[in-house]
């Protein structure tokens, strides 16, 4: 029934001996298809650990190339990969770690035109994007196509993570109804980030993905997890589903995808 090879039994043994995972859970992981938005600070650790865990298929979309300043935190890339597409660089790293995993790369920018098509063959979406237009696009696409989404973000010493099960729990817009005005949130400026921070948030997201796959535990559904590295504090703040949410509420006003302008052009 559970057709593992000898090598797979060894590779995944520490999962298989966990009663909550077991052979069945590991098989679910091996069959799961996860789509990752971004192969940067968050995508790198998420992908790394999901590949180690043996997910069946990992899709990665990112249009950026590796820069030297990425390497302080984007651990899927190496010095040799500077200048290469992040997707290709991550694929090389991940395939070296676990040849079981099918890594599929998309060197393009997500938009309303391509997102539905890109995510349609995947079970779960992970958002590790670095801008608001993508964040809202991914949320709306997941709500409209009813796909679970793990969303995470980091800034300086702070991080957030949440898990969205469309039409069951809250979505991103239930809390943050619409994007902030251009230039208002300093996310697009070079404000810096502690290198370990996206690793920590990413691994919370990877944990959520694995729990979603094996169907165990309590998710960050209807919660926003807020982490501060300086205080070393974690706070779980309840986020109720909003019946007036413009995309997942009772009378949605957003019924198709929106390409917001790139706020970050407001740099000075």
């Amino acid at each position, binding site marked *: 029934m559970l057709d593992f090879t000898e090598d797979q039994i060894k590779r995944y043994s520490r999962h298989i001996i966990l009663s909550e995972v077991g052979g069945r859970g590991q098989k679910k992981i091996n069959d799961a298809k996860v789509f990752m938005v971004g192969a*940067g*600070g968050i995508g790198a650790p998420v992908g790394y650990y999901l590949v180690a865990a043996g997910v069946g298929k990992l899709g990665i979309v990112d249009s950026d190339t590796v820069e030297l300043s990425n390497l302080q935190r984007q651990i899927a890339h190496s010095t040799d990969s500077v200048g290469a597409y992040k997707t290709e660089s991550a694929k090389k790293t991940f395939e070296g770690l676990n040849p079981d995993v099918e890594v599929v790369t998309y060197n393009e920018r997500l938009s309303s035109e391509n997102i539905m098509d890109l995510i349609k063959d995947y079970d779960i979406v992970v958002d590790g994007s670095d801008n608001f237009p993508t*964040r809202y696009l991914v949320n709306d696409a997941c709500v409209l196509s009813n796909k679970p989404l793990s969303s995470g*973000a980091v*800034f300086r010493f702070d991080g957030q993570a949440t898990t969205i099960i469309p039409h069951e729990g809250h979505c991103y817009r239930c809390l943050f109804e619409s994007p902030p005005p251009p230039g208002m*949130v300093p996310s697009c400026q070079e404000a810096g980030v502690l290198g370990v921070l996206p690793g920590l948030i990413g691994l919370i997201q990877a944990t959520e993905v694995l729990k979603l796959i094996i169907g165990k535990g309590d998710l960050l559904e209807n919660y926003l997890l807020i982490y501060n590295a300086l205080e070393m504090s974690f*706070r779980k*703040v309840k986020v*109720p589903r909003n019946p007036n949410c413009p995309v997942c509420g009772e009378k949605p006003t957003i019924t198709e995808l929106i390409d917001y302008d790139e706020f970050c052009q407001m740099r000075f």
Partner: protein
Amino acid sequence: MEVVVNGKPEQTEDGSTIASILEKRNIRKEMVAVEVNGEVVKRDDYDSLVLKDGDKVEFLFYMSGGAEKR
């Protein structure tokens, strides 16, 4: 009176509103989502919602990542 802001108790004047606390902390209202006692408050209500002793207020900051310049 005392309200709990992001998990920390804080003394504030009677009659304080979301808007007045945001102003005191120098936070622009466009930068946060606000919850009072677990319910999201609409931005239009920040001026009119008068807080009560013991209210739990959460300022949840917009965060998108993006340590890189684009």
